[in-house]
Structures are given as C-alpha cells and as structure tokens.
C-alpha cells in the first residue's frame, strides 16, 4: 500500500461509515431518538474540530467556545422563526455571525497569554450567555426558542430524520475537510509555531496577531455552523445548551483526544457523547463521566489518547501524512503532522 493511497483509504472508510453504515443501521432501527444521538455526536465532532484549530493547533486555551456555538444557534433560530429564512441562508449567516463575534472577542484579548486568555474567554463566554438568558425580547430568555421551520434546501423539505442526518453528516464532513486542510498544511504549521513560541514565530516573519485572530475567527465560524445544525435538527434551543459546562465538554473532547490532533478531537468527541449514552441504563452520569475522563486523561496521558495508545497512533500517522513537501525529490517520511 503506497503512502499516498493510505490517507485516501482512511477517508473512504470514514465516508462509508458516516454516509453508509450509520444511516443504514439507524434506518433499520428507525428510532428518532437514535437519529438525535447521531446528530448530536456529529455536531460535537464539528465543535471539537473547530476548537482543535484554536486550542490544539494555535495553542490558545479557550474556555468560552460554547458561546460561539450559541451565537450560531440563536442566529439560525431567529432567522428561521422571525425572518422565515430557510437553511440555505441561516447556515452561512450563523457561521458568519459567530465568526464576526469571534473577531470582536479576539481583537482585545489576543495579547493575553495562557491562563489570562483562558479566563478572558471564560468571562466573555459568560457575558454572551447572560445575554442569551436575559435579553428576553429577542432571545425569549430561559424559555428558549422553538425552531419548527427551515431545514429546507432548494425547495426540498429535509426535516425528516433520515434526510436531516445526511445534511448534518455532509456539512460536518465538509467542515472537517476544511479544518484538516488548515491544520495539516503550512498554515497549520504557522499556527503551531505560535503555540510553541509566539515571539520566535514573530521573528520568522509571521504576523502572529493576525494569525491568532484569523484562527479564532475560523474556529468561531465552524462553531456557528454547528450551532445552526443543532438549532435546525433539535428543533428547540435554550441558553442552557450553550452554558459554561458545554464549553468544558468541548475542551474535554479536545484534551482527551490529544491536543493538536484532528483525529484525536474527533475521537474525543465521539467518546464523550457516546459513552454517556451507552451508560445511560446505569444512570445519568454524563457530567461525572466528562469530569472523570478529563481528569484521568490529563493525569495519565498528557498527550491525550492519540500519541499514547499504539493502535490509535497508527491512525494518527495515516491521517497525518497528507502533505509531504511536493515538488522536491522524495525525502524521508516528512509531512505536516
């Protein structure tokens, strides 16, 4: 198997799984609850992937990611219910509004480092949450918004369980592809340089402030997209969906999977969404599980799952070799990780 073929095979396997096997199983079981779980898992995969870019790759510890998710969801819900727009409009507008707010957040906070940046994003996330909770005339406050219309593309109603799943799956996959292109390229390496030593990156000619703001905006954009997907598929949103514990949940996914690794973020998201579902018969311990998994993964495997477990390390290598310095003679195993 050649080195070029392997990533293609992995991608093909993922496509077959997400667009073939999972919908087939869901269709056979035909329970709307399972469709919801599948959508939720995909939405959190997207959220974790968007956080991976800013926290894992660019090294900016973010504690308010759920706020951008919320902005996307509220934008979509309000545009759908108040303005009667359909999914084709609400989706991009949700992403853009979240990205816009992300830039506003990033401009003043980018010169803060490490935990001060983390706490600033926590504060801003809380402010956004307070607005969702208390700006009742617009957001309907704690009662939330019922989103009954809008999952419609080019005149086709896609709101039934199976079509909605495909919408979520395809948008998530496309977004993952974009994030993969960003994080596994010279662009991702420039962001990694910021994470490693931003002063040094500055001396290499990288406009560190612009790059940080850019990565923050892109990450916000995809969180907003995830928000729109949630608003349209869940049919109901309320501020509690975007509160601080959700930010921590997303952070936990990225940390558990392994900071800096996109497959890691995906796996982390799947574990933390699906594990509590599997354990539901035992009791609703979702948050305890999140806390426990986060704690033990920091304690026992600081690099997350990927990079420690050998079977998954293989996955990392295979997904990681996407770019290997084209245009020169065949060098040793090198590529953007």
């Amino acid at each position: 198997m050649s080195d070029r073929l392997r990533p293609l095979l992995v991608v093909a396997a993922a496509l077959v799984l997400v667009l073939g096997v999972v919908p087939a199983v869901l269709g056979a079981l035909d329970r709307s609850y399972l469709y919801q779980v599948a959508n939720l898992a995909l939405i959190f995969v997207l959220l974790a992937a968007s956080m991976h870019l800013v926290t894992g790759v660019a090294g900016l510890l973010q504690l308010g990611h759920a706020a951008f998710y919320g902005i996307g969801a509220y934008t979509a819900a309000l545009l759908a219910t108040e303005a009667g727009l359909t999914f084709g409009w609400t989706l991009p507008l949700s992403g853009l509004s979240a990205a816009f707010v992300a830039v506003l957040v990033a401009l003043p906070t980018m010169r803060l480092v490490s935990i001060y940046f983390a706490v600033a994003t926590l504060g801003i996330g809380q402010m956004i949450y307070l607005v969702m909770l208390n700006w009742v005339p617009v957001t309907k406050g704690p009662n939330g918004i019922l989103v009954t219309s809008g999952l419609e593309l080019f005149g086709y109603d896609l709101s039934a369980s199976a079509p909605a799943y495909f919408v979520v799956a395809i948008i998530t996959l496309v977004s993952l592809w974009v994030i993969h292109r960003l994080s596994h390229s010279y662009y991702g390496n420039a962001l990694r340089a910021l994470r490693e030593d931003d002063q040094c990156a500055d001396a290499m000619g990288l406009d560190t402030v612009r790059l940080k703001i850019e990565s923050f905006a892109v990450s916000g954009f995809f969180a907003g997209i995830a928000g729109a997907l949630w608003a349209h598929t869940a049919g109901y949103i309320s501020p509690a969906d975007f509160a601080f514990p959700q930010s921590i949940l997303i952070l936990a996914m990225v940390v558990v999977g392994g900071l800096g690794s996109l497959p890691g973020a995906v796996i982390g998201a799947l574990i933390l969404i699906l594990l509590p579902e599997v354990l539901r018969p035992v009791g609703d311990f979702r948050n305890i599980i999140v806390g426990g998994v986060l704690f033990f993964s920091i304690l026992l495997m600081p690099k997350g799952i990927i990079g420690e477990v050998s079977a998954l390390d293989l996955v990392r290598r295979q997904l990681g070799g996407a770019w290997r310095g084209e245009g020169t003679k065949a060098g040793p195993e090198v590529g953007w990780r």
Partner: protein
Amino acid sequence: MDYYLQQLAIGLSLGMVYALMAIGFTLIFGVLNVVNFAHGEVYTIGAFAGLVVITAFAPPLFVVLLIVVAVGALAGVGLERIAFKPFRRFSDEASLKSRAMREATLMSSLAVSIIVREAIEIGFGSQFQTVPLDRLLNKPISLGPVTIVSGDVIIFVVAALMLGGLQYVLKRTNVGLSIRAVSSNPLGAKYVGINTDRTIIWTFAVGSMMGAAAGILVGLYYGAIFPSMGFIPGIKAFVAMVMGGLSSIPGAVICALILGFSESIATIFVPSVWADMVAYGFLIVTLIFFPRGIFGGARDRV
C-alpha cells in the same frame, strides 16, 4: 437615600463574601501560580456541610461555622492531594510555576470541580435545598433610617474576624511565614529548609476554610443552597484577585469590596439578573487595560 444606603449595606456583605473567596484564590495563586478552578466547589461544600449539620443537630451558628471551617480545610487538603499534587512532579521553581503545570492543573481542578458538583447533585438533587426558616439570617435590624438584616452584620463580623485571623496567621505564625516565603521564592524557601509540600497543603487548607465559611454564610443569608452555587462566586473572587494584582491579599480584599458595591449599586439601575455583567466587565477591562491589577503590582508579561 435610605434605599441607596441599604444597597450599600448589601454591597458590603456581598463584598466581604467575595473577599473571603478571593483570599483563597490569592493565597493559592501566590504559592503555586495556578488558578484553582475548584475553589467554587469548596464554597458549595461549605454550604452543604453547614446544611447537613444544621438539619441533623441544629447547633448554634457559631458551632456550625466551626464545623464548616473544619470541613473546608479538609476539602482543601483533599483537593490539593487529588488535583494539584500529582502534577507537581519536579521541585525546581521553573517547573513548579511553569506554564504546562499551570494549564494542566487548571484543567485538573476544573475536572475535579465538575465531579464534585455532580456528586453533590446526585446526592442532594439539583434544586434549592430546604433551609430551616428559623436559621435564615434575615432578621431585620433597624439602624436609624436604614433597615438591614442580621445576615449583613453576621457576614461582616465573621469575615472581618477571619481576615484579621488570616493576617495574624500570615504575619505571626510559622505556617504563615512559610506560606509567605514559598510564595515569594519557592526555591529559596526550599533551600532554607521549608517543607514546600507541607506549606502548599497549609495554603489550601487556610484558603479553603475561608471559602467554606463564605459558602454557608451566603447559603443562610439568601436561603439558597444548591450544587452549582459556587460557580458564580468563584468567578467573582477570581475577578477580584485579578483586579487586585494576582498575589496581593489587601488588593484582592479591596477589589472584592469594590465588586460587591458595584454590583449592589448596579442593581439600582438595571434588573438584578444583569448584575453579573459587572464582574465580567471588570474582568475584561482589568485584563486588557490593567494587566498588573488596578493598583499596579509587579507582574511579567500577561
């Protein structure tokens, strides 16, 4: 006018509570340079411990406070052993206060705080707990034209006593001396024979005592004891610490009072649900414009 004075009285007790919380943060930050995200849970534990004691034995408030403070100290020690000690693998200053250590413990304390909060929720339910009515600190007291409640006085007195006690401990006892030594120069403290590990445990114990006391006082003041009650005060206390310049106890106390007053005054003009905005606003403004705290202590690149 009376209404304003009343709000100021409320602001004072609010500020005192934030001060008690902020001291725990500040002590721990001073010694370890880490943010203890589980500090809010110590506050919750204090409130729940007090509630359990009250419902079981109904002892006088003074005894309740003593028990709560003891439970808080234990919780602090346990927290340090579980969420902080395992990450302190090296003893030199660079790694003791390194960025990696900071971020790892930030997340480990976050994880522990989630687990504690959820465990309490599973044990007691997520709703407001029933506090015996006669134990609420809401007996009206008339001071000339102003009416305050007994809680305002009790919180002020208890907090003032604890602040005084802390000052005594820090300035006059060996434990306090070693806390101050480790906080200003951990490596030097180690060289002159101070047991850094024990000092860190003491710091968590002392800081958590004050946090737990704040928890039960507020719980009885508002009659609101619930599993996630510690989150918001935790953030407020953190804001006070940042405003005060991170490792200055007087700075944190003054800023906690400023925060308390600002919030109670803000509720005169806007609905009280927006009051939390004040703290977040202070946080962002301080971080961006006064990275050394509003009194301008020494701090490197923030």
